């Protein structure tokens, strides 16, 4: 029986056909967890697409004027109104955290345990900052401007409804990500991924692959934010 060697597989379109027609795995050399995360993200993409398409429908069909986003989300700094200031910072922080996540994955595969863990912590901090600023934005809209899910003073009521629902749903995604980032940072500090310590719930061996899988999720959440940003704040 020969040894399986992934480097000897055909490349390009031929390789695609070969892999589809072969046994055992369609995605050669891809761990189960990673394939699972990709499929899950595809499903999640459909959820966010449904939200955003619904938003477009509502905006296209409402008879009351849609509020001007750059006014609603503007901040006044030293007496000068700056449109979208907070959102710009939020977006910058979240995209930056995607960078630290990628670095954490790299250090993980290089088995530089401490560095990997610290970058995970940095990513989690980025996520926390983002959620914190979102909470600030929500409270400004609710308490200062009087926007409610069922009402807003700027125009179409659906604006508030969609805003709280979609950013809330995305914020939940970020918060779940932050929780897992912190758990994974602890596991990395403890050396679980080096020793293959068994998971508390799953009793499966830990592996640095897990960090890359979490990374996939984190990049997805960041990417989705770009679309939400475009649809809510720029349109």
């Amino acid at each position, binding site marked *: 029986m020969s040894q399986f060697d992934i480097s000897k597989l055909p490349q390009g379109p031929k390789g695609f056909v070969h892999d589809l027609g072969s046994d055992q795995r369609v995605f050669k050399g891809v761990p189960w967890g990673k394939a699972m995360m990709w499929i899950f993200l595809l499903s999640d993409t459909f959820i966010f697409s449904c939200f955003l398409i*619904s938003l477009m429908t*509502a905006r296209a069909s409402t008879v009351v004027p849609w509020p001007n986003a750059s006014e609603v989300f503007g901040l006044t700094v030293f007496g000068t109104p700056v449109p979208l200031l907070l959102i710009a910072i939020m977006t910058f922080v979240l995209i930056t955290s995607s960078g630290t996540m990628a670095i954490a994955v790299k250090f993980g595969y290089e088995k530089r345990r401490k560095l990997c863990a610290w970058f995970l912590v940095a990513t989690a901090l980025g996520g926390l900052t983002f959620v914190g600023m979102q909470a600030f934005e929500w409270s400004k809209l609710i308490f200062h401007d009087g926007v409610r899910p069922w009402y807003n003073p700027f125009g179409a009521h659906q604006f508030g409804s969609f805003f709280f629902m979609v950013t809330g749903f995305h914020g939940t995604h970020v918060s779940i990500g932050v929780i897992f980032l912190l758990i994974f940072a602890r596991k990395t500090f403890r050396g679980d991924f080096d020793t293959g310590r068994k998971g508390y719930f*799953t009793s499966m061996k830990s592996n640095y692959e897990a960090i890359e899988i979490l990374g996939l999720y984190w990049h997805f959440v960041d990417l989705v934010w770009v679309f939400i940003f475009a649809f809510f704040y720029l349109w």
Partner: protein
Amino acid sequence: MSEEYKDNKIEAKSADSSSGGYAPPAEHIPAKEAPEQELYHAKSFWTKWVFSQDAKVIGVQYALTATAIGLIGLVLSWGMRLQLGFPETFSFLGPATYYQSVTMHGMIMVIYLLTALFLGGFGNYLIPLMVGARDMVFPYVNMVSYWMFLAAVLVLIASFFVPGGPTGAGWTLYPPQAILPGTPGSEYGIVLMLVSLAMFIIGFTMGGLNYVITVLQARTRGMTLMRMPLTVWGIFTATVLALLAFPALFVAAIMMTLDSMLGTSFFMPDIFTMGEKLKTGGGSPILFQHLFWFFGHPEVYIVALPAFGIVSDLISVHARKNIFGYRMMVWAIVIIGALSFIVWAHHMYVSGMNPYFGFFFATTTLIIAVPTAIKVYNWVLTLWRGNIHLTIPMLFSLGFIVTFVNGGITGLFLGNVIIDIPLSDTYFVVAHFHMVMGIAPLMVVFGAIYHWYPLITGRHLNQTLGKIHFWVTFLGAYAIYFPMHYLGFIGVPRRYFEMYDSPYMTSGVGLNQFITVAALIVGFTQILFLYNIFSSVFKGEKSERNPWKANSLEWHTPDYPPTHGNFGKELPVVYRWPYDFSVPGSDKEYIPQNVPPSQVPTAKVEIT
């Protein structure tokens, strides 16, 4: 398989074509690509049988839970039928309860019974065994999936006991009426329904990821995609559909929950009640219909595709013949699945959408008939000159083909806008969808249970009870639904609590009574079937190993019935497709998938 494939250096299969082209290929066992799966070995009773991470146990748990809630759905239908057939004699059902029964019956049967049974039940039990895996790829997530499903079912049941009772909005839950006073359960019932659906979707996603990745990434050596039993293809494609279609329902459920609880206006147009304008307004009820049916139509195929797959295997095994046009069958499943995403608005012809939309969706709907007809022809051609054993699974498979053709043909009527408009919201529609996605898949469920029961318990179901069960169910289904087509043609509207003495109804009174009696008889026969299932666990005739002489891997495990880890020490190696029945030149009547070519040197098999 193309010539090029044989010459491929990696998969070096040299066929000696000099001796007539039938010589078996040289034995080639592909290298293992990944280490063995790490398994969780349960020690205690609780972790083995209750909080089990074994896909087989989870499959049985799914099936039992789905059957239990399905039984409630069945009883609800009795109440409806009694009211419709004998409105004066049985007056215990008020109008509100009638609507609640309609709603809960529909939702329970479509989602909590059929979806959960096919994907959660059969999927969990069969996928790992059929593709040669020790278990699902994420056993823990798989376990959580079942408990999430159970919780969703419990929330659904809880809605029967809240003030106002369960929702009575019809299974499509159309807003704004679903959440406005006047509809039963518009306060708490609808919210519990939406929460239960969201929980079901979350639980299903956990299970669905397992099924998809197990099929894609955890097959045994030699198990190519085109050597998988069609059962696995059907369940796999249906799971992919579900993972992409359920998000729309999930989003719709969230938005309607907010409409109901926070007073948002996603789906609420401007409404006047009691002379006053409601605070809500400006939303789009049509948006909900689009979201719902973007889920709802693929849902039909989520139920139908596993049935297609399973029935192909049943027919092939019990007719002792290879499935006709295997590749065509696979592609038909995939194409039906893909098309099912662009036909949803044929449920909305009368919703007032743009007529050009209707034209587009009627066209795509009728295109689906092509791959579907291919499948039906292939089933019939598989039977053609087959060695047909009229076992109970075969009887149910034959019943399925007939019923499915019937339901499919009425689908052509309803798929055309111009015929749909007069038939819309009549009993014709009720008859159509019960035939095509109620009775037809249920026939397959029953056939599959008679087929795989020996694998699960090591005993056969009682054959006499089984024959009674088949004939009463099959003939009874026609007694129920054929008259309903006629009722629809004469214009009897569906979802009406009572018809009174309307002129079109007077000629239908006798028919309605007949339908009710037939429905009660068929319903009680299902109780007989359940009795058969439970009593045969202890009293059933012991089954020998592989009683149907099938080829697929689930019958060829070292332990029978299969135990934890499925395949003992060494995972099987697969050399062929699962349909090598009555192979010319072979002294064996059937050649299981894990028999190497060297053991059947004379068999003139095609290389699969």
